[in-house]
């Protein structure tokens, strides 16, 4: 939304996403690519940048990068090379980062995002491979920074958009769709808390109708998509106020402060962006032939946008339902497996979106960790349809299914949860409820039909929830008519 910005300016945003690939080893050496190990326990002479060592490219990292490139509709360059990006910082043991400059893996892609008018194409300028830097800790020892080189050499893919985003909401939507697509590819755990997915934003304003870009600021330290959105909103307002006051925007890097909810100038000496790129002499160039690209293309899963469209068409799901189901590939697979056992598509969908997602969220786990089988859910739905279970008991059975992995029928039997629909068993309860609630019975006889519900409630209570409420209603009505 652009409501915070006046009529005078247009917001222009470009995003850079860094994604850590989940290869078994680092990009240029055989050290394990793992998060959370003891500091400096996953290093070797190559990733420590010791003299005389040579990097060798991890083939799996290149294949993952091609996968990402194709999923983002990029063209894959037939010839790629690596370059050195030179700067001094203690997190970079070699004094340069091996990255890609003029021949990246991929260029000219796009991602479609939803906008009020339909969809909008966000162009992806390029995606390239590079190595991650080490991790610095500043607050442990006075006057010192501590360095952990475990992360050094983790394969990264950097995905850069064109400045096509026009609001913080568009940026937020782009990030969500990008993340979902990357999750489907299974090339990264995409966990922002662990830093496996990181985002920087470039933002500038320009007068509406202008085609020239304004002076931009670069926003860093964005630890969540929410922070990306909030920082962009803050920056739109800040830049707008400056421009309206006739002042100029300073091109600089600004850090998002989550506590203060504002961006602050970094004022760092490292601001001189003079990286003196040159070809990495320790790595030979790489050619990516069409056969390799086609092989990777064939390995791509159905991507979220395609799945969304197919689920809507094939199962007549609403946009809302399909949108939730595709947020997790395993959920979408589970849904489709359920439909092989039952025609009750809408009910399956409701059970998944409601109780199942609640269980998953409250347990902070994934579907794979629950021992829930598709046919058990469809059996449960069938038992409700047959009148064996009330909706309330069904929820109880479901919780136990998730908890124990038992079948619904076993649980119904064990817990004695089957609904009683047998007239003779229910008659006695109805009789005593009517006997005990004569004043309510009088009201009903005088035409207050809604009071029947109260009697049904009382009957349910007496049956300890096992009676079939529909059946109770019928019996009560019949008895009152007769009497």
């Amino acid at each position: 939304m652009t409501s915070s910005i006046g009529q005078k300016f247009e917001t222009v945003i470009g995003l850079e996403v860094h994604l850590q690939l989940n290869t078994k080893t680092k990009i240029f050496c055989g050290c394990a690519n793992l998060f959370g190990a003891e500091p400096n326990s996953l290093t070797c002479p190559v990733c420590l940048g010791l003299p005389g060592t040579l990097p060798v490219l991890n083939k799996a990292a290149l294949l993952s990068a091609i996968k990402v490139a194709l999923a983002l509709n990029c063209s894959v360059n037939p010839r790629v090379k690596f370059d050195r990006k030179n700067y001094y910082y203690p997190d970079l043991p070699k004094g340069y980062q091996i990255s890609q400059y003029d021949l990246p893996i991929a260029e000219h892609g796009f991602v479609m995002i939803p906008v009020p008018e339909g969809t909008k194409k966000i162009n992806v300028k390029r995606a390239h491979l590079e190595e991650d830097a080490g991790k610095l800790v500043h607050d442990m020892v006075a006057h010192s920074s501590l360095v952990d080189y475990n992360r050094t050499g983790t394969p990264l893919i950097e995905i850069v958009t064109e400045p096509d985003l026009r609001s913080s909401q568009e940026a937020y939507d782009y990030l969500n769709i990008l993340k979902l697509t990357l999750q489907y590819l299974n090339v990264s755990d995409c966990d922002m808390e662990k830093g496996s997915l990181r985002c920087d934003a470039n933002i500038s304003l320009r007068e509406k109708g202008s085609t020239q870009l304004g002076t931009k600021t670069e926003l860093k330290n964005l630890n969540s998509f929410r922070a990306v959105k909030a920082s962009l909103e803050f920056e739109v307002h800040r830049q707008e106020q400056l421009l309206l006051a006739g002042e100029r925007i300073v091109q600089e890097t600004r850090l998002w402060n989550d506590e203060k909810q504002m961006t602050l100038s970094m004022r760092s000496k490292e601001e001189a962006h003079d990286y003196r790129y040159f070809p990495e002499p320790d790595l030979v160039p790489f050619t990516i032939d069409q056969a390799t690209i086609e092989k990777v293309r064939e390995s791509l899963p159905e991507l979220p946008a395609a799945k969304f469209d197919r689920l809507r068409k094939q199962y007549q799901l609403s946009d809302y339902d399909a949108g939730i189901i595709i947020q997790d590939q395993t959920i979408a697979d589970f849904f489709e497996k359920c439909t092989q056992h039952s025609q009750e598509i809408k009910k399956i969908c409701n059970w998944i979106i409601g109780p199942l997602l609640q269980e998953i969220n409250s347990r902070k786990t994934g579907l794979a960790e629950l021992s829930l089988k598709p046919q058990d859910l469809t059996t449960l739905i069938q038992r409700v349809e047959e009148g064996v279970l009330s909706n309330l008991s069904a929820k109880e059975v479901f919780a136990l299914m998730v908890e124990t992995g038992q079948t619904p029928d076993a649980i119904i039997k064990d817990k004695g949860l089957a609904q009683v629909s047998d007239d003779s068993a229910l008659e006695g309860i109805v009789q005593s409820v009517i006997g005990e609630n004569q004043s309510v019975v009088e009201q009903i006889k005088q035409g207050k039909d809604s009071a029947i519900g109260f009697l049904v409630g009382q009957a349910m209570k007496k049956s300890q929830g096992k009676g079939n409420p529909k059946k109770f209603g019928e019996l009560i009505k019949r008895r009152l008519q007769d009497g």
Partner: protein
Amino acid sequence: MITQKDVKYIASLSRINLKEQEVGRLTKNLEAILHYIEKLKKVDVSQVQPTSHVFPLNNVFREDVVQPSLHQDKAIKISQNHHQGSFKVPKVIE
């Protein structure tokens, strides 16, 4: 043309401390190198494939198989300054 100012700037990017007389000598040396590059630029290379590497090699890969890493104490001992398994450097942010 390369000036003494350029040389000092490049030296500062590379964290090299140059004495005044070294700046003078290096400016002359770099000037000669740049002069030679200018000469090379005049060669007609329209029929030559661009080269980014001197060896006629392509696609040298490593398979994604974990190799043993250095032990933590061995790794950090390459520096004199370390603290509880981490390398210690002068503080880099205020």
